[in-house]
């Protein structure tokens, strides 16, 4: 589904990614963990080409994406992204937020897009919020609406960039529940999070990142119960 080879990315003289390799198969849930500043978010943003890599190769569905020659908007239709700060469109209702891209990008008839959007809203538990504006939603509701908006494009893979980090603790659960459901339905997901219980429970693979590299990757039991690398052990002892 996604293959990454030797990815490098610098901001000025600061090298944030120092050669990342990763392979994600269909229906895999990969959770990226690591301290802040380790490059997790930058890596995720590279996969959606919100940041363009300096070096290395990214294959999406076996197609090598060359940012200079591949139309990135077409690639992004396949790669959904959920942001820490939601980024719902404040001038549009929840329903309008969701149908915007299907109607304007995929040219799906509005009626059909609305029917689909309502089904998605039901799925994330926001059926009754279709016609309200984002400002009236709680953080957890905003994030669930943002997930629905992303799903409306039928992406092949969903990227989650710290989706619960901006939420009050009591609202984290409702977002994780939606993500868990998606995982169970077979959605391919790459998740950056500090929610270790989510990683443990839902992930097929947990990757530990440190200083711009993936230090260790394995099934959750292995990473959490029997980490091989000293830095992984040290990190896990701090977050526990």
């Amino acid at each position, binding site marked *: 589904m996604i293959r990454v080879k030797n990815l490098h990315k610098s901001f000025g003289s600061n090298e944030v990614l120092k050669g990342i390799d990763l392979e994600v198969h269909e229906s895999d849930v990969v959770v990226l963990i690591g301290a802040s500043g380790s490059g997790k978010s930058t890596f995720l943003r590279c996969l959606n080409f*919100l940041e363009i890599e300096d070096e290395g190769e990214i294959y999406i569905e076996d197609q090598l994406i060359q940012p200079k020659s591949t139309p990135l908007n077409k690639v992004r239709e396949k790669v959904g992204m959920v942001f820490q700060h939601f980024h719902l*469109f404040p001038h549009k209702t929840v329903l309008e937020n969701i149908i915007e891209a299907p109607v304007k990008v995929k040219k799906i008839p509005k009626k059909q897009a609305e029917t689909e959007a309502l089904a998605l809203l039901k799925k994330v538990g926001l059926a009754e919020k279709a016609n309200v504006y984002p400002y009236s939603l709680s953080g957890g509701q905003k994030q669930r609406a943002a997930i629905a908006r992303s799903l409306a494009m039928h992406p092949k893979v969903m990227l989650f960039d710290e989706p619960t980090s901006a939420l009050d603790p009591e609202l984290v659960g409702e977002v994780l529940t939606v993500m868990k459901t998606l995982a169970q339905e077979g959605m391919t997901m790459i998740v950056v999070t500090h929610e270790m219980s989510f990683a443990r429970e839902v992930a097929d693979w947990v990757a530990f990142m440190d200083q711009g590299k993936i230090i260790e990757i394995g099934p959750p039991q292995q990473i959490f119960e029997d980490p091989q690398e000293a830095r992984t052990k040290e990190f896990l002892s701090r977050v526990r």
Partner: protein
Amino acid sequence: MDVLLEIFQTTFVGFSKAAWQTIQLTFWSLLLGIGIGIIFAFFKISKYKVLHIIADIYITFIRGTPLIVQIFIIYFGLAQMNIVTLEDFTAGVLALAIHAGAYIAEIFRGSIQSIDKGQMEAAQSLGMTYPLAMRRIILPQAFRRSIPALGNQFIIGLKDSSLVAFIGGKELWATAMTTAADNFRQFETFFINGLYYLVLVIIFTYLLKILEKKLDVEQRGEAT
């Protein structure tokens, strides 16, 4: 007081016609000014350096010189140089538009840049191209955010239109000057003239308030 009322009555027809001229001058010049403002706002946020420089030169010249000078150059100057001879109304609209456009460009640029960059990223992550995201996501929000400053600029534009009197425009201020020269009632005539401007501004401010409310500026303009 009786004199004031009398002058009001005798000038009513003239001032009403003139007020309509002022409204037309203001309306067309601001409409054109918004168009100019949008273009130069995009120049200023563009990644092409040439466009930046063009916009900077335009804005520097317009903001750095008096409006009356700009009006005279466009009306008398262009005619003398055999470039184009314009009617006073056309020259007035053009000069006012070019003048307001520089300020409006800065208003739009500021409000576009004030939109959280996450909005563009979210739009692009949904497969929208940059122009589509600009048109559907960024500009509607930026426009809402620019309304208070834009309203301010419109009020200034309305009053600035009085300078078109000096190239033969038949608007409020021109009419006030000719009327006062005839009736020798300078105080009453100019006072009443001021009231016409005041009423126009009050009406406009009221319309603006309705628009702001309709667009729910405060709440929907918030970043989410």
